[in-house]
């Protein structure tokens, strides 16, 4: 039995089967991401002062990924147009570029994740911080943030060494925007900063908790890894499907090119959706 409406539109929906299927799937995806964005909103609003990091992400890498996805959306439509024109080689070229751009996105995402794994955050008791570590950190113009509700301070940096009783951390420098703010508020004091970067030794007895910047470290990191991880899984799914249509799936071109172009159109709709999700994710998680 031949399945109807694989090529032409069904009269009551105005869509062929594949397109109707992908739209219904995307409707469920909207609900999935919608629920996660809602969770983000609640978590963000509930965050105590000092617990939501700012300027923690590499914006240049995030922006590069945005550009890669935007370009891949264009090449995806190019692949579809090439099939409509029955230019098979152009189709393969365009789809190949789209796959490479998708893989590029994943590589950059891997670099960003690695930076989080290699980075360490330390929450230090308020009293100990003020008495023992603050002067040294201020001297070398290192970053530190107060968490009033936990009577603590946070520093972030790279772990040099861990002993039974101490941690040796190379603290992150103060972000440029903070230095600019301080210069504006107190030009004389700001001039005195800018000391040499050096590791700082912290007694474990003064630490509330410490760890890599992974989901268990804080709410921001939990929602960051959840959203970007889920999005990356969608990219992986899209790339796998495109690889299929570049190789085994492209045999359909000989039998029924129109059906292959429909399949590529459907894949393209999914890819656009993944692109739009990223464009929503990038500002809320990176530009904080």
């Amino acid at each position, binding site marked *: 039995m031949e399945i109807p409406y694989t090529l032409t539109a069904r009269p009551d929906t105005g869509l062929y089967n594949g397109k109707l299927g992908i*739209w219904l799937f995307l*409707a469920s995806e909207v*609900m999935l991401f*919608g629920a996660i964005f809602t969770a983000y909103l609640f978590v963000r609003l509930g965050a105590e002062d000092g617990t939501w990091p700012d300027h923690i992400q590499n914006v240049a890498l995030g922006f590069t990924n945005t550009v890669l996805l935007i370009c891949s959306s264009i090449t995806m439509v*190019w692949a579809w147009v090439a099939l409509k024109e029955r230019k098979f080689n152009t189709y393969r070229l365009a789809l190949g570029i789209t796959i490479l751009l998708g893989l590029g996105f994943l590589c950059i995402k891997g670099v960003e994740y690695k930076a989080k794994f290699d980075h360490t955050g330390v929450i230090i008791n308020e009293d100990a911080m003020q008495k023992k570590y603050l002067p040294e950190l201020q001297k070398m113009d290192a970053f530190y943030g107060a968490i009033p509700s936990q009577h603590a301070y946070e520093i972030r940096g790279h772990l040099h060494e861990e002993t039974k009783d101490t941690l040796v951390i190379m603290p992150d420098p103060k972000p440029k925007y903070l230095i600019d703010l301080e210069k504006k508020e107190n030009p004389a004091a700001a001039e005195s900063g800018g000391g040499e970067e050096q590791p700082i030794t912290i007694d474990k007895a003064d630490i509330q908790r410490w760890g890599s910047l992974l989901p268990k470290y804080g709410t921001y990191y939990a929602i960051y890894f959840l959203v970007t991880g889920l999005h990356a899984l969608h990219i992986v799914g899209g790339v796998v499907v495109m690889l299929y249509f570049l190789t085994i799936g492209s045999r359909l071109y000989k039998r029924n090119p129109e059906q292959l172009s429909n399949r590529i159109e459907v894949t393209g709709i999914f890819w656009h959706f993944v692109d739009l999700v990223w464009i929503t994710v990038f500002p809320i998680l990176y530009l904080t």
Partner: protein
Amino acid sequence: MSADPVDHSEEAPHAHDNATEVAHAWEHFHQNWKFFICFFGVVLLTVITWSINFGPKWNVFFVFLTAAMRCGLIAYFMATLFKPFSFVIRTFIFSAIFLAGMIFLSMWDSELRTIGDPIKDRVNVSPESHVP
């Protein structure tokens, strides 16, 4: 299901006019190309405005402006995709209502009247108030 005005000529076999389809595909491509260039511009503008400190009042203004531009572009892009598909529009309207309902129920469940500080406030809710 309500009867939509549909061109039934599509159902006829071999009714494909390939030249028209190719022209339509190119039109679609050009539309997409322009759209994504606009999106690139808006995201670039978002990054630039984020990296400049305009002061508390203007920072908020630019955050809202760029967010509105991104939302507007997404809405425009979706509109260009949905135009001929009434069934899909209905599906998405349902999705939007469903999502709004979920948000409302979440807030109602947490006994909040506004989006405020749900996590903190929830801790303060007395156990008696959860009795149905």
